[in-house]
């Protein structure tokens, strides 16, 4: 009899232990509150507080002021030195004093989390940090990138040399930010995590401490940035994608020359980012126009690219969901249950100690994966369309009569100002 049931003994013991654990947690007041005979009073606890909320509004005010000054410096005053001083200020204030939080780059995720989750209310300062630089981009180009963004400022101030990247390589690497933006919006929209903040390379430098992987990543970017200027802005920054969209249609924008362009070609080597679009006056080449038929074919191709990427992302949604904490915990618990691989992570231990059942966990997993499935196709569609249009823009060619910056990619750093021989602004 005993022998027959003895194989169930371990399970029984584990059950008793687990139940005992919940009993322990349920009854934490094991010892009664003491009744002091002496005149003992409970110590007054000294809690510390964060800086008052109105300081957040000071940040917003500083942001608006810095953006206005940079716009004026870029468009009216045309002062590279002034932009550099704004960069120094931004690096000191938004970077080292405010320690890189909150920044406009990260605020994308707050907005996306708030748009798709009803239980999260976005702090007003985060919303304003997202919107104000975009409004300025619509009026005067990427002035935020020029000197206000602390991530841009630290790279601007350390970019000493000027190594030009092959335009084709630049075009390929320049597609990474679109993917990064899409994934960042997806992960925050499903309420999983903020990947932009997680992989922010310079926050460790601003805080003078952090995990060594991020510090090394930031240091490598800065070292690369000495030669290939602003690597984060060009090949990673997801906010730069949005800034580019808005800047492309901006009302005013930085111009290389203050008056009329003389096609002297002196500005050609000035731009470290290779965004100066050359004039066609000198080459005298006849630009071949793309026929209507080809345009239709390209349009259909772009649409197909969007749809196929949407399909691809729909199918990779469960894979993307694995980075989610809840899904990875559920996977671990299921592996333990089905294959006997012991769940050893902290999360699994915490789960075993908690009162949650496996069914609840698996239900949550399915819910999270479904949210990923709902969101991922849109990311794919966005990627397909925007990358398709990017490639299309490389094929079409409008004839230009003067040298001008590519409005989408120009960060308004003003390095081209001094190369232009036309100095006096003629009204």
């Amino acid at each position, binding site marked *: 009899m005993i022998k027959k049931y003895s194989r169930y003994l371990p399970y029984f013991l584990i059950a008793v232990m687990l139940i005992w654990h919940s009993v*322990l*947690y349920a009854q*934490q007041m*094991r*010892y*009664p*509150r*003491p009744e*002091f*005979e002496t005149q*003992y009073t*409970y*110590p007054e*606890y000294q*809690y*510390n*507080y*964060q800086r008052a*909320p109105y300081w957040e509004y000071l940040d917003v005010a500083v942001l608006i002021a810095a953006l206005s000054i940079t716009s004026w410096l870029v468009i009216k005053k045309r002062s590279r030195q002034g932009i550099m001083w704004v960069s120094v200020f931004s690096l000191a204030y938004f970077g080292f004093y405010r*320690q890189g*939080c*909150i920044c406009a780059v*990260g*605020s994308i*995720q707050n907005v996306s989390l*708030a*748009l798709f989750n009803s239980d*999260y*209310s*976005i*702090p*007003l*300062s985060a*919303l304003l940090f997202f*919107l104000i630089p975009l409004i300025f981009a*619509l009026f005067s180009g990427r002035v935020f990138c020029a000197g206000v963004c602390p991530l841009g400022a630290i790279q601007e101030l350390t970019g000493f040399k000027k190594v030009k990247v092959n335009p084709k390589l630049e075009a390929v690497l320049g597609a990474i930010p679109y993917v990064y933006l899409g994934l960042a919006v997806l992960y925050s929209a499903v309420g999983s*995590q*903020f990947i932009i*903040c*997680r992989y922010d390379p310079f*926050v460790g430098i601003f*805080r003078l*401490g*952090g995990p060594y992987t991020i510090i090394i990543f930031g240091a490598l970017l800065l070292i690369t940035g000495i030669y290939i200027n602003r690597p984060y802005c060009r090949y990673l920054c997801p906010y730069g994608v949005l800034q580019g969209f*808005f800047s*492309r*249609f*901006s*009302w005013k924008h930085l111009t290389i020359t203050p008056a009329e362009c003389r096609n002297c070609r002196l500005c050609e080597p000035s731009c470290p980012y290779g965004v100066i679009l050359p004039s066609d006056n000198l080459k005298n080449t006849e630009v071949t126009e793309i026929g209507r038929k080809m345009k239709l074919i390209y349009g259909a191709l772009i649409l197909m690219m969007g749809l196929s990427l949407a399909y691809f992302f729909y199918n990779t949604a469960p894979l993307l969901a694995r980075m989610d*904490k809840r899904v990875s915990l559920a996977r671990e618990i299921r592996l333990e249950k089905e294959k006997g691989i012991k769940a050893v*992570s902290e999360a*699994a*231990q*915490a*789960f075993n*100690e*908690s009162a949650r059942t496996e069914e609840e966990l698996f239900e949550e997993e399915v819910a999270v994966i479904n949210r990923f499935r709902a969101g991922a196709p849109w990311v794919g569609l966005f990627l397909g369309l925007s990358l398709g249009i990017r490639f299309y823009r490389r094929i079409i060619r*409008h*004839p230009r*009569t003067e040298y001008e910056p590519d409005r989408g990619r120009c960060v308004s750093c003003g390095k081209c100002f001094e190369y232009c021989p036309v100095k006096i602004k003629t009204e």
Partner: protein
Amino acid sequence: MEKRENNIKSRREFFRKAGRITLAVPLLSIPALLAKKAYSEVYVWQIDPYKCTACGLCKTSCVLTPSAVKCTNAYEMCGYCDFCPGFLRQGARAYDTGAENQLCPVGAIKRKFVEEPYFEYTIDEELCDACGKCVQACSDFGNGSLHLQIMHGLCVNCNQCRIARVCPSDAIKRVPADVPYMSKDLNKSITRKGAAQTKKTES
């Protein structure tokens, strides 16, 4: 040639204008959509002590070194035990303040005699590094009055708290900055003014 250039220029100008208007629409609609949900209230991160399992990740995962998380004692819950499981190591040779007998690896818990047989335990926040050993012991063998809290004098309030991302029991959440602590002190919440206000228990 001249005419064609002008044509292209005006067409480009038109596209630019149209694009500007198209982009202004989402820019204006986002605040309109979020207007109801945008709070002028600031949010801060805090640990729910009833979810916390004192795993020790607060010590290693915070962006600050030492961590902004510190141990606190909810005095009104504390048993003032002579033999405090959070203070004394299990299997200690003697029940006194000798360093070899203490559980805390940095000696942050200070013990003060009140009256027979009660002792008061306070935490020196300068020393505490949020390893959670005392919290675990107090929860397992004591009243559970020792608990971890994020100290807002130290916390830099990251947009995404690094500890919250790795927290195995999802104990860290955003709370309004006006009520920044989730103290275990018998459902007392501490308001901004620092005065302890008793909340009505909802259970």
